[in-house]
């Protein structure tokens, strides 16, 4: 066939080559920028890992070793069972357990409270329903740090200082999670509620049989976020707990670092830091599939 079509035909190969070359260039560029990003994030963690395998004097001299040393076992066992640093004597094992219990209590407490309060706000008609919702909502504007003095006063009055309850309860009330569950519950079709009413399922039954199973992925996503939130708590545990047997790992870690009047046992500190990293990493890795599903799922 004459005309422009037949003129273009021989160019197809060249065009295809050009497209392939462009795709290769783009792939190279994206990977290069990803690698740089990963290095920036991973390098400090690598330094910590390496630091935890040398003896106390290597880092004390001011060296920053980049290759592993031979003291890993000694450092980790000291951190686990004896502790180190300024005060000496608070082993990481106990602090890890405290942190784990605190993070789990905060996470589960937050999820339980926000699930039930969102359920009430969305599925029931009661006087001052919207007022209740807005009261929950405005606490978003008051993070723990802002209300820390009055909260501390309340805990002192309730004689809850130096207790696990004092450590966790003020952190449990959560507007964010309530809001999130409310938004999710609003997407549950009214017909489910009506079908359940005709089937004879009461509110608790409906909650257990329909709402909870439908919320599983959302709960999992929240669990990850809230567990890390709880694990990383610093200011409140620092304030409310003096009893070192209740100390959490994040607080304990900073207390190991001295004010400059003595040499820090950086090898043990870094080993403790690695211990502190592991549980949140484990939670993210184990729950990642659910987490992503909970953030992206649109099935219905």
């Amino acid at each position: 066939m004459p005309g422009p079509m037949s003129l273009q035909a021989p160019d197809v190969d060249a065009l295809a080559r050009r497209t392939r070359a462009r795709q290769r260039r783009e792939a190279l560029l994206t990977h290069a920028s990803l690698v740089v990003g990963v290095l920036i994030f991973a390098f400090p963690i690598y330094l910590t890992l390496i630091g935890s395998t040398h003896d106390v004097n290597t880092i004390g001299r001011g060296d920053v070793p980049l290759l592993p040393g031979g003291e890993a076992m000694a450092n980790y066992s000291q951190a686990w069972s004896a502790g180190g640093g300024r005060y000496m004597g608070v082993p990481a094992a106990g602090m890890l357990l405290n942190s784990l219990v605190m993070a789990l209590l905060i996470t589960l407490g937050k999820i339980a409270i926000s699930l039930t309060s969102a359920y009430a706000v969305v599925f029931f008609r009661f006087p001052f329903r919207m007022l209740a919702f807005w009261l929950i909502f405005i606490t978003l504007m008051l993070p723990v740090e802002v209300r820390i003095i009055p909260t501390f006063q309340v805990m002192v009055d309730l004689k809850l200082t130096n207790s696990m309850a004092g450590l966790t309860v003020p952190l449990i009330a959560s507007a964010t999670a309530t809001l999130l569950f409310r938004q999710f519950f609003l997407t549950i079709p009214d017909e489910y509620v009506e079908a359940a009413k005709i089937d004879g399922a009461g509110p608790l039954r409906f909650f257990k049989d329909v709402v909870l199973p439908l919320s599983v992925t959302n709960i999992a996503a929240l669990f990850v976020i809230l567990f890390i939130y709880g694990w990383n708590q610093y200011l409140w545990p620092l304030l409310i707990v003096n009893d070192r047997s209740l100390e959490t790992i994040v607080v304990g870690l900073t207390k190991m670092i001295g004010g400059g009047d003595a040499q820090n046992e950086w090898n043990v500190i870094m080993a403790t830091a690695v211990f502190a990293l592991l549980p949140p990493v484990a939670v993210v890795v184990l729950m990642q599939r659910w987490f992503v599903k909970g953030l992206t799922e649109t099935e219905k």
Partner: protein
Amino acid sequence: MATLALEDVKKAFGATQVLHGVDLEVADGEMIVIVGASGCGKSTLLRIVAGLETATSGRVIIGGQDVTPLEPADRDVAMVFQNYALYPHMSVFDNMAYGLRIRGLPREVIARRVQEAAELLGIAALLERKPRQLSGGQRQRVAMGRAIVREPKLFLFDEPLSNLDAKLRVQMRAEIRRLQKRLGVTSLFVTHDQVEAMTLGDRLVVMHQGHAAQIATPMEIWERPADTYVAGFIGSPAMNFLPATLTAGGTAARLETNGLVLPFADGPRAGEEGRRLTLGIRPEHLRPGIGGLDLQVELVEPLGGESVLHGRLADGAPITAKLPGALHAEGPLGVIIPLEHLHVFDAETGKRLDAQA
């Protein structure tokens, strides 16, 4: 299986009156279709029967028992929803069994009933699947199955076919009718589709602005519509309306458009000469011929064996005619009005005017 009676059911949402007092008697095993345009109150009426809405006044009586104050679960009714409302995390079996489990029936009874219903509906092979793995028609069947296993006194259908494609809708329509007859369960079926209403119902309730405009069998509604709304709503294409006046003695009507006098075939109507009327004539009753109406045909829709012609009279009033054959052209056309198919309505009230005995 039971009778159903509604006594002067009224419903207001705030200041908006949605139902203006509906009375209805449904016999045991009867299939009643509630049909009307959107916003006429038909779904509200169904939901009041289900107990999902509370009537402002009036009574709902199922099987001779006043259930007005009862919860939906205590009324022994089952409902099929427009979007099926299948729980996405439960298998087909669990969806169907859920209502029975809540009622605490023994496990074997539940399994037997679900199995029977599934076989009846042809979904026995799908019991382990989740709703998202089913097609629209299969979901529809599961929703029906969930109602059937309950063995309720009353089936309530809330536009259950409107989410299906046209072919499946016709198929499921026939299936629902067949099932309902076989099971003999008293049913209320809400739809906005007049074809669905005509084919499904033993009797229809045509709702208009919160009133039951007419309650009768499909053929009676088609042949003797109670007012111009019902006449225009039931039948496709819709009935043609022509303004006219009564002649002396009430034996004929004079068309306003061209002065044509149409004698009533079935007897005289009451009223003074000059009483204003609306005459109704269905498109399929018009025949080509001289001496009736002169149309200017603007559009021809061939349907195969017959054609729908859209035209206008000299004064601009639209007229639709359904004529046999496909060979029709746009342009002038004369049609005659068979007198035996003429419907006579009062122009002011829109009510049907019957011949005096």
